[in-house]
């Protein structure tokens, strides 16, 4: 990636502090106190709010009773991505937002941190909670080793089917490994979670892009069913002049670089402009700031109320000291004499204006993947971002699990 001039001078210690877990793990004491606060509701709103319908009161009660193994099993049984969801789920709008304590004018139970407490125990003790089912001899191909594909793979292995996962990248985990803000979820946890699933006997073939290296039709010949969870494509283009200047980078590339290199190796400008106002734009602007940018500013063509990001993400960016320019539609990216980025020209209600900057991060959403999938074939199933247009890990996990159930039902029927 093209880099602007190196301007940052944060120490490694400061960088480590800036990217430390934004929601650190609970101590044992704190987890017990929190677990005891849970009312143990029946038909609990938190469980209903969760796309994977984790039995939240049950797992919290098990933390309170000292049954951490059982607690983690309740979570991971229905959500193979319980580790990453505990760190990256938008719980404010899901389980914690639904907690009945909100209606008693109290803070909701810290469900995400309790989920982390229970699931960390599994990683720490290296517990194997699930086993592959009795071998059926049926073969399923899964395209994409992200949360949807691996969730599907996990449950198909529990049913005893042979599973091969094709992944274009060099590591499994999809956006969990490459795309979640570093202060929420680190790649080592994402990879440990992925490997926990792969250890059930999933064949993983890395560096293979279906459609490029192997034709999709071949999967239909070689396998009894195919699940497609390829996620979305690269960041959309702005379609304005100057987009190809050095110093202009798309958000996903920026975040992936940050997550796969030592922090100091990701260069950030002194004055950074992030174009877009979705959750990825927030991840980009906060991380640019945490890398040491003097200013990091969201530039958004519409108003504050129109921002697609979650409200709590907006609040986080404000706390991080990020700037916001609303109703400012980018017209072109301006270069200086040496051809580097010097500013973004925007149209506002008062006419044109140039926002000076030396780095532009584009975060206006991802396009679709080019993979052509025969949707009319009953043996083909889809899930995750490529099917839902881009949502959360928990949605991908829920869709992968649901697809595994459908695939298993189909394979059992054809089995006779």
């Amino acid at each position, binding site marked *: 990636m093209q880099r602007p001039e190196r301007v940052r001078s944060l120490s490694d210690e400061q960088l480590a502090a800036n990217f430390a877990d934004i929601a650190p793990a609970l*101590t*044992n*004491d704190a987890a017990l106190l929190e677990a*005891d*606060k849970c009312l*143990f509701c*029946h038909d609990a709103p938190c469980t209903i709010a969760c796309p994977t319908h984790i039995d939240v009161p*049950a797992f919290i*009660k*098990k933390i*309170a*009773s*000292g*049954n951490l*193994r*059982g607690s983690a*099993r309740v979570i991971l049984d229905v959500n193979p991505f319980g580790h990453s969801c505990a760190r990256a789920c938008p719980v404010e709008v899901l389980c914690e937002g639904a907690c009945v304590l909100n209606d008693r004018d109290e803070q909701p139970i810290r469900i995400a941190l309790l989920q982390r407490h229970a699931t960390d125990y599994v990683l720490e003790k290296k517990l194997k909670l699930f086993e592959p089912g009795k071998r059926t001899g049926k073969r399923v191909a899964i395209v994409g080793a992200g949360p949807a594909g691996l969730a599907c793979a996990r449950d198909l292995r529990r049913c005893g089917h042979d599973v091969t996962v094709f992944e274009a990248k060099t590591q499994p985990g999809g956006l969990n490994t490459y795309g979640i803000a570093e202060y929420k979820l680190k790649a080592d946890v994402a990879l440990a979670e992925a490997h926990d699933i792969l250890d059930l006997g999933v064949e993983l073939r890395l560096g293979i892009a279906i459609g490029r290296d192997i034709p999709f039709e071949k999967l239909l010949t070689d396998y009894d069913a195919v699940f497609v969870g390829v996620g979305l494509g690269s960041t959309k283009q702005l379609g304005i002049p100057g987009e190809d200047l050095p110093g202009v980078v798309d958000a996903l590339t920026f975040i992936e670089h940050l997550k796969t290199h030592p922090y100091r190796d990701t260069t950030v400008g002194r004055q950074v402009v992030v174009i877009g106002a979705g959750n990825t734009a927030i991840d980009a602007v906060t991380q640019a700031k945490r890398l040491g940018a003097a200013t990091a500013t969201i530039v958004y063509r519409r108003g504050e109320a129109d921002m697609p990001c979650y409200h709590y993400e907006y609040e986080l960016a404000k706390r991080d000291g990020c700037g916001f320019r609303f109703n400012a539609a980018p017209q072109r990216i301006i270069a200086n004499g040496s051809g580097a980025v010097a500013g973004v020209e925007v149209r506002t209600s008062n006419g044109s204006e140039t926002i000076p900057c030396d780095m532009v991060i584009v975060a206006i959403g991802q396009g679709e993947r080019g993979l052509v999938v025969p949707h009319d074939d009953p043996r083909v199933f889809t899930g995750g971002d490529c099917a839902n247009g881009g949502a959360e890990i928990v949605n991908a996990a829920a869709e992968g699990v649901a697809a595994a159930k459908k695939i298993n039902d189909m394979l059992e029927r054809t089995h006779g």
Partner: protein
Amino acid sequence: MADLRTNFAGIQSPNPFWLASGPPTNTYGQVAKAFDQGWGGAVWKTIGEPIINVFSRYGSVDLGPTRMMGFNNIELITDRPTPENLKEIAEVKRNYPKHAVIASLMVESKREAWHEMVKQTQDTGADGIELNFGCPHGMSERGMGSAVGQVPDYTCQIVEWVKEVATIPVIVKLTPNVTDITYIARAAVKGGADALSLINTINSIVGVDLSTFEPQPSVAGKSSHGGYCGPAVKPIALHLVSAVAADPSVKIPVSGIGGIASWRDAAEFIVLGAGSLQVCTAVMHYGFRIVEDLIDGLSNWMDEGGHRTLADVRGRALPRVTKWEELDLNYHLLAHIDQDKCIKCELCWTACEDGAHQAIRRLERKNGGPVVEIIEEACVGCNLCAAVCPVQDCITMERVPNDYPPVTWKEYAAGKGRLAPRSEHFHTATWSKSR
């Protein structure tokens, strides 16, 4: 996966978790639902001449935000006709043949009345009979319940009558409202009981409304003492179960009852000798669903400890319950404060200074340094500071080794053995002078 199958005095159940006789076992619908959710057995709400209940029957003791830490009731036995109860027991047993279905009985103290009730009960196919000699309120005023269980002779007599006609195991449920429960337990054994269950509820008044002076639960402004239960009574129940289980003249299975709400509670009852477990209040609070974690947690604990069956753990802690005079006087402990964990609340200092042995020193608050430290020569290793400390593992009790062989009070009083030098109340002795 641990094997939780239970054989209690010949009564089989898939796991040791039974619903205790009480409101949750009042009807077919409740017991069937409980079995569907995993309960291993149920002791039907006590059958007898149907009673008339008062309105307002339960009182709760809340501890801070925790509801129903203690609970009491002035509800009586079943208010449903005997034929209806027996018909439903038969139906449950028919539909759930592998579960333990036990009928709790209470009738007037007449031989014929007991004979008749026992015979009718056996016709249902029930697996066992539990004699309610424990209910402390209402029924006792009519010469039943704890009025029987508080008198060894009555207990023995009625068990004998029941055993004259019983063809299924007879469990005698004991009241804790006695001076020494082992006397009653032995009387039940003498009468021929096949097993015991304990404890029934404890006499109690849970509180008084200070604006109206009405004791709770209030019935038109008045109340009556009721049976206390819930997590608060567990320590009393653990003691009484262990006392009965360890009694060499008892030697029959004991079903543990009293404040069981989690698998840990259950495990504690088992290692103190309980052969099955009965639960009521926790179900009244949270529903039948709690059985899932009771089973899961107990099973995971057994797996982690390498225990395959309940027999492997039953009574394992009993040999460690001894008389005070058999405890080692040369086992010395010293409190240790982990200063990195200390949050500087000084609760330990306050407790030790005012409530124990003045063995903690306060230091001036400066530069984030320690604010409390143990005065080792004064510490008697009593555990109070560790008990009040709000941080887990911040204050620990550390063994202080010495070269003196163990010596018990019994030995020492008989002139045997030597006492290791110990911290005494040197501080206490100078307390009035130094402060």
